[in-house]
């Protein structure tokens, strides 16, 4: 089995992972995973619970650093730069590789403040006018502007779950990241809010490299152009989404997408 999955089709590569192993204490959660993340596409990670797809995602912006006992081996590069090298500033990395989490987690502050926080700590704006521009453009990109423009001072936690998640996406967009990682962003949302987020992901495609972890195979099929199937800590198969869903090479992939387990 060829464990190194490349994107092919001359697609520009944003991030590369080579021989990544992740350990939680003595337990190995990720076994020798190598793949490339396309700059222009949405990449989906699918697989049953506990397969390591979220763990791998969190390696891409070093969120695993905060996990006790977690150890990451291997080589992960962002634009050819090793993100685990001492020369990489992790704070800057997380600004360049933004993240949206499973459960909407807006700050318990105003909508405006939720968006303005990232740009403020990175010094991306100084005057109120500059912040206003950033907040409006981020909310517009997240398709939230028309819903909230009259109540920017209200708490971000007072919105509906779907709005909260789009606020979190807007918050990630506000620092102009290069990659957006989404860890099951719709798992806590109803179907209508989910559809709205999926549309949004489609709109953001091309502007940002997007990696999405999902439980929902239909969602992966709908929003992504590249799909990686994880199982028991290994990456079983990686390729174009249409190929994975219509013509999987591995039997495990086939069994999973046809609903035999998972």
């Amino acid at each position, binding site marked *: 089995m060829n464990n190194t999955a490349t994107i092919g089709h001359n697609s520009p590569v944003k991030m590369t992972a080579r021989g990544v192993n992740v350990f939680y204490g003595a337990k190995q959660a990720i076994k020798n995973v190598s793949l490339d993340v396309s700059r222009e596409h949405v990449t989906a990670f699918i697989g049953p619970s506990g397969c390591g797809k979220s763990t791998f995602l969190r390696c891409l912006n070093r969120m695993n650093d905060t996990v*006790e006992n977690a150890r990451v081996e291997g080589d992960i590069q962002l634009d050819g730069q090793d993100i685990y090298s001492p020369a990489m500033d992790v704070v*800057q990395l*997380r600004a360049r590789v*933004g993240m949206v989490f499973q459960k909407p*987690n*807006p*700050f318990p502050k105003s909508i405006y403040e939720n968006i303005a926080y*990232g740009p403020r*700590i990175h010094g991306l704006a100084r005057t109120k006018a500059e912040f206003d521009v950033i907040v409006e453009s981020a909310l517009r990109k997240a398709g939230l502007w028309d819903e909230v423009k009259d109540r920017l001072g209200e708490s971000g936690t007072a919105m509906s779950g779907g709005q909260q998640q789009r606020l*979190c996406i807007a918050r990630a967009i506000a620092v102009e990241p290069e990659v957006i990682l989404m860890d099951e962003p719709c798992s806590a949302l109803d179907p209508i809010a989910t559809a709205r987020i999926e549309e949004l992901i489609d709109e953001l495609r091309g502007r940002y490299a997007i990696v999405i972890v999902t439980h929902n195979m239909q969602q992966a099929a709908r929003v992504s152009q590249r799909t990686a199937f994880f199982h028991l800590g290994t990456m079983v198969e990686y390729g174009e989404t249409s190929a994975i869903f219509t013509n999987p090479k591995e039997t495990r992939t086939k069994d999973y997408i046809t609903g035999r387990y998972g």
Partner: protein
Amino acid sequence: MATVMPAEAAPQARTPTDWQAPDMQRRIAARYRAERNFRFLGLAALLLAGAFLVFLLGTIVRDGWSGFQRTEVQVSVTFDPAVLGVDPAAARGPDGLTILRRADWVGLMLVSANRLGPAADAVSEAAWVRLRDAVIADPALLGQTRTIWVPATSNIDLLAKGKFDLDAPAESRGVSDEEVSDWRLLAQKGLIRTGLNTTFLMEADSTDPELAGIRGAAIGSLLTLLITISIAFPIGVLSAIYLEEFAPKNRWTDFIEVSINNLAAVPSIIFGLLGLALFLNVFNMPRSAPLVGGITLALMTLPVIVIAARVAIKAVPPSIRDAALGVGASPIQVVFQHVLPLALPGILTGTIIGMARALGETAPLLLVGMRAFVTDVPQGFADPATVLPVQVFLWSDDVQRGFIEKTSAAIIVLMLVLLLMNSLAIYLRNRFERRW
């Protein structure tokens, strides 16, 4: 075996449960009975606790209420410069204040009190202070005659408040026949009144109950608690932040955690011994000072604040930390811009409760010398001082009858302050509590 028991024949076939069977009905009745009994016991326990509380507060308020009142005697005073031994011209001069302060006020008081006739002894020993203060406030009084209200002795005060049982035999009622007749005489002439006890609220301790006040101890408590909070709060909160957010989880931090929990349970007098041995004997810090008392109480309060702050920090959902890290906040920014503001209400609640405990603490302060008899209101952190609970302890120990109501009055003051602090803690918790 020819006959087969039905149960053996068909072990799976259970008879349908008869919910109306007498056995079942009995069980249901027993369940209801148990619940009724439990509710009754709970209610009884609550009522008993409430009754104890009402009894405690009731007796304290009953005994202490009159401590906020005092009896005064009206005397007619002629501010005769000759009796005072001052030259009226010099008293108006540049050194007038010094001259007036040195005048023979005690002599003037004696002369004035004698005008009361047989009831001259009803005037407190320190009544002359009133005369001095009146003239210093208005030097034009020199040479004039005025009626002035001066404090009565403690026994006259207690007589006026009806604290003595006058039907009891003279030798066992604690007050002499002369004092009783003095009081009757003054009352007949209308030369006696009972009003707000400003002395109690504005002065420090005294050997005479009618001159003793709570202010010295209250300021002592305030100064002590200022030291305590300014040491315990920052150290406690920073320790909690470090332990929760930054410290590696290993055997050392486990050991520190267990130690902190143990320290919170150490009897407070042990901290007093530590304060005595370390701050007084090794560092030679001033005895009886709010500085030393405050540091000692800070050591005692520290573990309480660390534990409360850790709980509050732990209660901030990890998703908030993820969110902040996810937009590129540094660990310090995560802590100070997100975790700490959200944990602050809990931290403040714990701190106020710790401070309330420190305010009510007596034992460790006795050991660092804060049980001193201090007749001045402390002016600074190194002045000799006492604190409210120690003042209560000192007065409750005093043999003079007049201190009984002062003790209860001091307890009322202490409890009002504690009530205020706990109310603030509850307010902060309700006002800033967030739900995720």
